[in-house]
């Protein structure tokens, strides 16, 4: 139990996927303009990450390893993630058309969110079991969502701030992301993996 707790803490805070591994930066910059869209993106990514890490573990354990096809993992995982994302899109469109409109192009882009593939590959590399994989995926998604939501609120305030002309838009967003990453380094002493 302590192991799992440490794993979750590590994936969500200490080694935050966005702010310390620099994975999944495209949605981090792209969908952080409006809070509603960011919240939707965070939830959708959390959902996709959890499901995809569970399914990729199953695929790895019961298909790829027995057949000696370990080298196919990147291809097969991307295919699997694309399928899960498509399923998520169908669900979001059916349950909340407004959210579907807000997320727009970014929902299919979860497919190319490197954090999702990163979690699947890290699960395999670290030889996580099914439960560990699920916890790792969910906490990575929670960490991504936390960073994204914090960043969005910062950017919404930045919109009204008096930023020098040369820094408006993306530059100040990147500087802010860098400062947030520095702040998250403060979690490094928590002692989790």
């Amino acid at each position: 139990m302590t192991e799992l707790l440490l794993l979750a803490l590590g994936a969500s805070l200490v080694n935050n996927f966005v702010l310390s591994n620099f994975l999944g930066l495209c949605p981090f910059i792209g969908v952080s303009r409006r809070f509603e869209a960011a919240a939707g993106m965070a939830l959708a990514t959390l959902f996709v990450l959890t499901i995809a890490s569970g399914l990729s573990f199953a695929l790895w354990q019961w298909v790829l390893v027995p057949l000696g096809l370990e080298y196919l993992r990147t291809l097969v995982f991307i295919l699997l993630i694309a399928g899960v994302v498509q399923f998520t899109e169908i669900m979001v469109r059916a349950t909340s058309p407004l959210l579907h409109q807000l997320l727009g192009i970014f929902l299919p882009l979860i497919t190319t969110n490197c954090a999702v593939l990163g979690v699947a590959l890290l699960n395999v590399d670290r030889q996580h079991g099914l439960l560990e994989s699920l916890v790792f995926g969910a906490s990575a998604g929670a960490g991504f969502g936390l960073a994204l939501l914090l960043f969005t609120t910062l950017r919404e305030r930045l919109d009204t701030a008096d930023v020098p002309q040369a820094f408006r838009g993306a530059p100040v967003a990147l500087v802010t992301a860098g400062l947030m990453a520095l702040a998250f380094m403060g979690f490094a002493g928590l002692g989790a993996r």
Partner: protein
Amino acid sequence: MNPDAVFVAVLVAAALAVTLGVALGWAASLIEPDADSLVERIDALLPQTQCGQCRYPGCRPYAAAIASGAAEIDRCPPGGDATVRALAALLDRSPRPLDPAFGAPKPAQVAWIDEEKCIGCARCLPACPVDAIVGAPRQMHTVITAQCTGCELCLPPCPVDCIELRPVPAVSLRYRQPRAA
């Protein structure tokens, strides 16, 4: 690597792709039942001006609100009484007059830009819900009449008030001699 291994690898990838495809198709048919098509049918009756006078961001959200019972059918001034009657017939409700709180019905109209006065500020471009205004910064803008819904959303952003609404021309594509100045 022997040929068998390649064959197995291709087979596994193909099997995964087919499985995912079938599962997705099944999920799509399962999750999107008739509830969605009612929204579609209501949406088809709305005038598609995307003007937001119903206090919803567009015609489709209003259609969804009608379908879920959150909104009445009397909130669409551009559609006028004809739309209310059509909606009432579709939903099997009694027709009711338009709610004046959402605006008065108007005849069909299109936006027209006075190109002499337009300064090319491009502020009306993002306001247009159907992208019917052509133009770029510092270039004169104009309206594609066939696309314009007459929603009036381009009027407030214009700093020089060079946009006005005119009745829909009977034949909008006919060439007209320029008037002598």
